């Protein structure tokens, strides 16, 4: 396969996954902002924590002032100049797809093309805070369609592996960032750790990754922070967890290496990162500090991405 094709497939996977996770992150913020405002004037900081989690705090502040719901929609969804907005992700995914149409099935192309045309033709003009919820649902539907299209129609060859390697690198990154939002969201004064607001926040987080039901299924216990963290970091059966994401990255890079008859630096790094997640337990995680643990993961996961590009001459 052409290196450029591999790069385009890898990034197409990343951008679609990123669009989906941005929608999920926005949903966390949106639901959290719907908590009843407390009489004692508790400050609202969901939106700045959202900006911090997506790594866009400074630009957003510079362009739209103090982060709030409207600024977040304007910057994180609609702004075509912000390379991390949903707008830019959908556009970039489609541009990548156009560049590698020969490596895709027509169903994949049509799902991406439809998503882009509908975003540009409809949502870009009409999206307001009032219809944010149906929009976020639309994004999830589009990304599910794309996933269904490639998992149902693509040959299981290198193209499929590169696409998936990108997807799961991005998913690991996003889940870590979503979980890290909880660290940045301060509890309103007077609210205690483990109190009702805290509980609501953890629940929202689980909901955003569609894992509330799974939590109850796995633990059969009330929501506890360390169990939420365990589910999203260490549980391999949870399809958006760090461990699951890395197991996939490891697997797809392994398939590529097999086809090449040699292993690369990226295989080594992926294996290392995945093993760590297999052998860590939740006590270790909290011992080192959840935020620190996640930050370290994001850095190593990024380095893995760079190493993939180097190994295959992107």
């Amino acid at each position, binding site marked *: *396969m*052409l*290196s*450029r094709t591999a790069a385009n497939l890898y990034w197409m996977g990343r951008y679609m996954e990123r669009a989906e996770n941005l929608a999920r992150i926005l949903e966390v913020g949106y639901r959290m902002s719907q908590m009843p405002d407390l009489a004692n004037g508790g400050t609202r900081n969901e939106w700045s924590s959202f900006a911090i989690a997506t790594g866009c705090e400074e630009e957003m502040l510079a362009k739209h002032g103090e982060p709030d719901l409207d600024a977040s929609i304007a910057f994180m969804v609609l702004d075509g100049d912000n390379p991390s907005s949903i707008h830019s992700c959908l556009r970039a995914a489609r541009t990548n797809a156009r560049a590698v149409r020969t490596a895709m099935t*027509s169903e994949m*192309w049509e799902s991406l093309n439809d998503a882009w045309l509908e975003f540009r033709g409809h949502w870009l003009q009409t999206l307001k805070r009032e219809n944010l919820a149906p929009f976020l649902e639309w994004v999830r539907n589009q990304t599910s369609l794309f996933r269904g299209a490639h998992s149902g129609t693509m040959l299981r060859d290198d193209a499929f592996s590169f696409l998936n390697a990108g997807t799961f690198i991005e998913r690991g990154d996003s889940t870590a960032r979503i979980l890290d939002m909880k660290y940045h969201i301060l509890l309103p004064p007077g609210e205690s750790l483990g109190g009702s607001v805290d509980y609501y926040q953890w629940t929202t987080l689980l909901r955003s990754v569609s894992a509330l039901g799974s939590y109850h299924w796995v633990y059969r216990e009330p929501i506890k922070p360390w169990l939420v963290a365990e589910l999203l970091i260490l549980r391999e059966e949870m399809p958006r967890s760090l461990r699951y994401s890395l197991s996939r990255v490891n697997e797809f890079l392994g398939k590529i290496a097999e086809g090449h008859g040699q292993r690369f630096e990226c295989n080594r790094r992926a294996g290392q990162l995945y093993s760590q997640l297999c052998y860590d337990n939740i006590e270790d995680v909290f011992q080192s500090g959840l935020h620190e643990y996640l930050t370290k993961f994001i850095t190593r996961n990024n380095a893995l991405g760079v190493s993939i590009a180097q190994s*295959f001459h992107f």
Partner: protein
Amino acid sequence: MSEETTDSIVSFDEIVLPSGQPRPGMEQIAEWMVSASRSLLKARQAEAETLFRRIGITFAVYGEGGDPERLIPFDIVPRILLASEWDFLARGLEQRVRALNMFLNDVYHDGEILAAGRVPAKLVLQNKAYLPEMRGVSVPGNVYTHIAGIDLVRTGPEEFYVLEDNTRTPSGVSYMLQNREVMMRLFPDLFNNHAVAPVERYPEDLFETLHSVAPAGCDGDPTVVVLSPGLYNSAYYEHTFLADKMGVELVEGQDLFVKNNFVFMRTTHGPQKVDVIYRRIDDAFLDPLTFHPDSILGVPGLMNVYRAGNVSLANAVGGGIADDKAIYMYVPEMIDFYLGEKPLLKNVDTFWCDKPDDCAYVLDHLDELVVKEVAGSGGYGMLVGPKADAKERAAYAERVKASPSEFIAQPTLSLSTCPTFVAEGYAPRHVDLRPFVLVGADKVRLVPGGLTRVAMRAGSLVVNSSQGGGTKDTWVLNPPVGAADEGGADA
């Protein structure tokens, strides 16, 4: 059936006779046109548009702002050629393209036709499209134009004219194939009731053609690729389409490199040798070391590999000389000179302003002629005399006087029309036809039909997609079983 009369000229309509009756052979389609309800046709037309947009069959128009990915209007009424008409055209096309290829081989080698004085040497040797870099270079099978798009127009039942020979990188074949695809999806019954000759094997024919011209030293299966300038090119959709249908890599210049006098592509498995390149990049951008030094589209060193015979390029470098509007005048000479045959397809009478008599005539009759730049294409920079006003003609006359050899002129032909479904219903619109002729080292291949382009505006003769023209599905129609004796066909 027609609800609109063309201005002054009464054109030949390919489906409807002046009496309003269908032409012989067109009865069935005419019946369908009358019986299909307008609301159904409108719905199907909208559906066609959605399909084209979804599949992403778009066309980029440069420098006009607006939608950078524009749809080419598609008309749902097919353009029909009877099998007997097509057989004649096919023979004429093959003859013409063979002669063009022999001409190219000749002018880059012995120059016999020039020595014999049958084509003016100056016209060839001093032409910008004639590349001295190609002199004496041998190409596999002596094939230069592997893919030719010959533009034809029709003025009457038996009158077909060649308007232009496209021997460099003719485009539009993807529209021919997708038009058929969309028509079959929208009107399956029409295809059940008509014996329409299939065109689907074109990509396979193209692949076999490219295979046949692999470099002599290539052992094993040659690696074929399609080389595109990238996704901002107006024909990018077509490049992806053809690579996809042939099952070969679509590459850009950055994906290729030259080493040890061979061409390789960069893959995740490391370098892989490339043998045949179907290139959709113009000569001037192929190799920055030989041509434009600042071009980033091409592959440095490609020309050396090519001249060494280690890679085949389709179409061959330097073929533009056969596509020149002045050389066009001499194609009948070529057919006579190389094949000793009479040309089956006619040329349009052409005046070349380099000849003083011709020039004087052209300047006197600007209001009757179409004047074109010898090196122009895409319908840009031409003067349609009868449609221009005195001021435009005067301005154009100045350009012609300034450099007469750059201009040719042709009488305005009364192009045939086809009923076309427009806002008001059916109306006659002018059409042309671009069949695609594939020339391999082994044989000539040709799928029945081609791309029909249609001028969507009433009375307009300009069919180029860059000028708002549309397309139609083109049918070569075999007579229904048992009806063969009706038209007096021989046994």
